[in-house]
């Protein structure tokens, strides 16, 4: 007796036999053919015999119930697909905002918001920023009651590069990252980057 190693589907996270119940069967199949072609035939058979194996599998619960089950699964699948599409659209339309807020003299801080859509753990990212840039970094709520990451120091470019890299790893290449500059002084000054003028 020994331990088994099991291949889990990267798409739906289930063991391969349960892909059909995840509602993502199409993409699961693609993933299996790409990564484990030898397992594909084991679970899904050849395209011609597929029907036959399906019938075999269904034999015990009766044709009527099997039909119903299949219908349900199809519905689940279409639902899932719709939801994914919506989510993707939302992700593509949303953008990350990096705000540079001037503090006293030549000091400033960076506030990053709009990351929650991309399933990024804010606290963790704040921690990595803090150690990466050797600076203070925390998560706080902004005016719209949304979470944002606040970094101390002028690190807009570095933070932007890092976020781009992070999003690329997640497969989101063309996410808009917008940079804004604001001054926290009473009189906003139009020339950015310049030393704050005295009133």
């Amino acid at each position, binding site marked *: 007796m020994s331990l*088994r190693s099991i291949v889990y589907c990267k798409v739906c*996270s289930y063991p391969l036999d*349960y892909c059909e*119940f995840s509602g993502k069967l199409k993409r699961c199949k693609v993933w299996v053919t790409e990564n484990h072609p030898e397992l594909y035939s084991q679970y899904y058979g050849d395209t011609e015999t597929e029907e036959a194996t399906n019938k075999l*599998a269904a034999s015990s619960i009766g044709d009527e119930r*099997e039909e119903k089950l299949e219908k349900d699964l199809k519905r689940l699948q279409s639902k899932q697909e719709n939801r994914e599409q919506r989510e993707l659209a939302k992700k593509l339309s949303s953008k990350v905002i990096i705000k540079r807020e001037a503090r006293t003299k030549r000091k400033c801080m960076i506030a990053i918001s709009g990351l929650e859509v991309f399933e990024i753990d804010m606290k963790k990212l704040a921690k990595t920023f803090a150690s990466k840039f050797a600076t203070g970094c925390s998560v706080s709520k902004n005016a719209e009651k949304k979470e944002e990451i606040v970094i101390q120091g002028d690190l807009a470019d570095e933070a932007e590069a890092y976020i781009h890299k992070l999003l690329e790893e997640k497969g989101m290449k063309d996410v808009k990252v917008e940079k804004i500059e604001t001054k926290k002084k009473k009189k906003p000054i139009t020339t950015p980057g310049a030393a704050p003028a005295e009133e």
Partner: protein
Amino acid sequence: MFRKFSKEDVHSRSNVKSSVQRTLKTKLVSQFPVLEPVIDELVPKKSQVELIKCEDKIQLYCVDGEVLFFQKFNELIPTLKFVHRIPEAFPTVQVDRGAIKFVMSGANIMCPGLTSPGAKLPDAPGLENDTLVVITAENKENALAVGRLLMSTEDIKSINKGHGVELYHHLGDCLWNFNVD
């Protein structure tokens, strides 16, 4: 049990002392004697076991970043990742194909789903009431859920009505998707 479960339910996490780890392993073996020859492979001596205490007094035990078993009261319950690696070690019941969908959305298993032609129950004398069981499905190789019998398997066969298995953990629930780090 894990219908709603997220990072917010985690109260504390700590590393387990090696002595505690040893007693944990003996407890696991006494609960599931078949595990004895492979326990060192599942929980290596050198590995660091992590204890995650959660809401409702649930405790998760992690080995190498994977939750291997959890504990509600006194009994250790294996997670599916654990079960998949060594399915022979646990008492098993099988449900028919029609039930899979419901089990995977977290429903308790009804007796007819355990007695129909596609399902399989262990032969007499069967399993006692309250036994921890692993649930597999017709024509499927791997387990899809872990639960506890609400009546003995002989009763399930004879009565054939009502809840048969209380579900603890199933494929696709929050514990399955739970990311340790």
